[in-house]
């Protein structure tokens, strides 16, 4: 399954891209993250949340969207 991954802020500096489409056979967010951690080892010690369908989801959620976003700590305002 193709999944678009969006990276923001500090995370986009690590991945050197704002988004990418990768093929996954994994079914949970944490399994997807494990793949991304292997691709980008520096991601592992970073603090971030995951949004699916524009809502923050827990890491044991099932992947149900075609796009997820990795969001570092918010610092608006």
């Amino acid at each position, binding site marked *: 399954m193709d999944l678009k991954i969006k990276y923001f802020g*500090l995370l986009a500096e690590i991945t050197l891209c704002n988004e990418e489409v990768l093929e996954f056979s994994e079914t949970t967010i944490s399994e997807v993250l494990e793949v991304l951690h292997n691709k980008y080892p520096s991601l592992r010690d970073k603090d971030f949340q995951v949004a699916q369908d524009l809502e923050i989801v827990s890491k044991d959620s099932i992947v149900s969207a075609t796009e997820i976003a990795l969001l570092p700590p918010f*610092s608006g*305002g």
Partner: protein
Amino acid sequence: MKNRKIKNVFREGAIASQFIGDSIAKHQSKTTIGAHSIFLGQVRADELEGKTVSAIEYTAHEEMANIKFHEIRETTFEKFNLSCMHIYHSLGLVKTGEICLFVFVSSPRRKEVFKALEFVVEEIKAKVPVFGKEIFEDSSHQWKVNS
């Protein structure tokens, strides 16, 4: 989420003081309003290890952020007796001394605006995916963390 439309809260670059003055002026025809309260976030020239911040560059998950701003707006209207509310946030480069966040709440009565203003600002800080990159005078940077 009620019948209010999702607005685009973002503005490219700093929010001009003139724009704020004009926003205030637009409310003078609303004669049921008795109290306005405004919050402005301004970029500080913070120092870190002898280097000084010269600007913050803001990025956001814009689609998600506008939905979150909208939800905050709806929740605030439910919690407080407000006549109107406006939120503007910068994207891109905002230099020190410039304004990056403008929150404007109005109500018939003053007690409401104080509580509503603080609520909106704290909700924005906590829930909206906006990311500030503090840029130092030597072009190095660090990612801002809200306290």
